[in-house]
């Protein structure tokens, strides 16, 4: 395994950021948690543009935790652009949102999300969700190398 690749959290609510950070720590995942707070920044980070130009050549995060309701560019649009680009199309993206609207689920899956998790109100449940997510996506699951074509 290469050195610890990060987890990218796309979340605009600082409370949720703190809670997620704590939950992943509590769950015992060693990966660093990178946070961006809107859709545009998320894409800049992934494509090493703008404020994140310095990331050119850096490895992509191991997992993206994407909220749907975001300033400027919403989660659906971010996901669409991730799947549209050859460099990020295989990137594991887990939707992490408060919404359990059917249409959000359907749209997310039709845009190619890898998982859809509803943020529970209960913190203990949230910690459990974070533990299982990390376990599955960071340890168990395997993805092709970025940029590989069929």
């Amino acid at each position, binding site marked *: 395994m290469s050195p610890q690749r990060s987890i990218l959290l796309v979340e605009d609510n600082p*409370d949720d950021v703190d809670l997620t950070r704590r939950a992943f720590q509590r769950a015992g995942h060693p990966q660093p948690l990178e946070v961006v707070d809107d859709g545009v920044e998320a894409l800049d980070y992934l494509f090493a543009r703008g404020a994140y130009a310095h990331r050119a050549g850096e490895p992509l995060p191991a997992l993206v935790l994407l909220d749907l309701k975001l300033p400027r560019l919403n989660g659906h649009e971010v996901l669409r652009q991730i799947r549209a680009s050859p460099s990020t199309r295989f990137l594991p993206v887990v939707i992490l949102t*408060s919404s359990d609207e059917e249409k959000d689920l359907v749209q997310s899956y039709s845009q190619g999300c890898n998982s859809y998790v509803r943020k529970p109100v209960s*913190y203990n449940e949230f910690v459990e969700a974070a533990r299982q997510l990390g376990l599955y996506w960071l340890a168990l699951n395997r993805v092709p190398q970025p940029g590989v074509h069929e």
Partner: protein
Amino acid sequence: MPLTDPRRFRRLLLRAILVPVGLLLLLAALLLWEVKDLLQTQEAARHSQVTLVRVERVRQLFIDRETGVRGFLLTGDRAFLEPYQAAEQLLPRALDELERDLEGKPTEQARMEALREGWKSWEQVSMQMLTLFKEGGDWLSLVRSGAGKVRMDALRATLDAIVAEERQRATLQGAEAERGARTVLFLGLLWTLTVGVLLAWLSRRQLLTLARDYDASLARVQAQADALRASEARLESRVAQRTAELTAANQELESFSYSVSHDLRAPLRAIDGFAQALREDEAERLSPSSLQLLERLQAAATRMGQLIDDLLQLSRVTRAELRREPVDLSALAGSVANELRQREPGREVKLSIQSSLSTRGDPRLLRVLMENLLGNAWKFTSKRPGALIEFFAETVDGVTHYAVRDDGVGFDMAYADKLFTPFQRMHKVTDFPGTGIGLATVQRIVHRHGGHIEAQATVGGGATFRFTLQESLA
């Protein structure tokens, strides 16, 4: 009054039939009367003919008497007396018959008297002659005196008078009958013409009225149709407007629900999360009662999260577009039951689900329905080890009733009418957790499927929820 009035139309028809029939009947009666008159005249003529024949018979018999006497006197041959004697036998009857014929005619009666008298007188003369002849007397002088001839001539004259009278009467009657027939023919023609013209005029008038009424009705119907089309168009535009308003309201509601689901849950998560963080990070510095307060804070936040979720579901059930497709209720109940078992593997519950129960409806909503009903049964049997939960169907009056029955704590039927009201609970939260929205959601789902739901329960004796679904709807 318009043609469309049925009473007036009936009257019109009645007149169109009754008036011509009545007029023709009158004409027929007139003709009948006249024919009877003609027949009477004919009968009178025939009678007159018979009378004339009788007169001639009497005349013949008189002649037979006269010629018989004369022949005998001239020849002395008794053979000449044969017609004389035969006529004597026949004459009284012939005279009687003639008299009968002339009954009721005073002049003729008088003539008959004269006839009888004259005959009697002639007989006396002829008897005298015959007596004289037999005795060898001077019968010839008596003949020459013309006494017999005078009497016979008088008899002939009387007969001629009767004949003349009879002929004149016949002629008169014939002329009268002819005049009557002519009058009837003329009147009949006039009558037929009048009736014809009258009927033609009446028919024309009625047809014109009908045509006018028809035109008026047509115009009215057209006006009504126009009005109907106009009001239809107005209605359509109103419906379109209302639909647009409703769609807007629905969209508003949807975006509201969306916001609620997103925005209200986030602070709750923060409350619960940071309370937990406090409990973990400051466990040693906080007193046990402070820790307990934090725990209660978290419980309240969790409960509010549940309330928001249940409210969202209730609103989703109301606004979601209803789909109609085949749904295997038995499989659905089985799947929900498995979830319940997985959630609390320690519970000892016997779940009995009738197989092959299928219906038509919205699979998502029916799942929510089963989750709530079986979830309730599961919850309210939690204090009974070896509880029994059943799902089955019964047919009552040809309608399928689905039922979820449990042997849990039940409830008091006195409060049954509040059962389906949101936030209405039958038990204390400390006994059985819940928001009181589940059964309201269940009822809305049943109503949206055109069915109804009712509950039966006793305190401590379990509860049964029976519901119908309008399955015939496509």
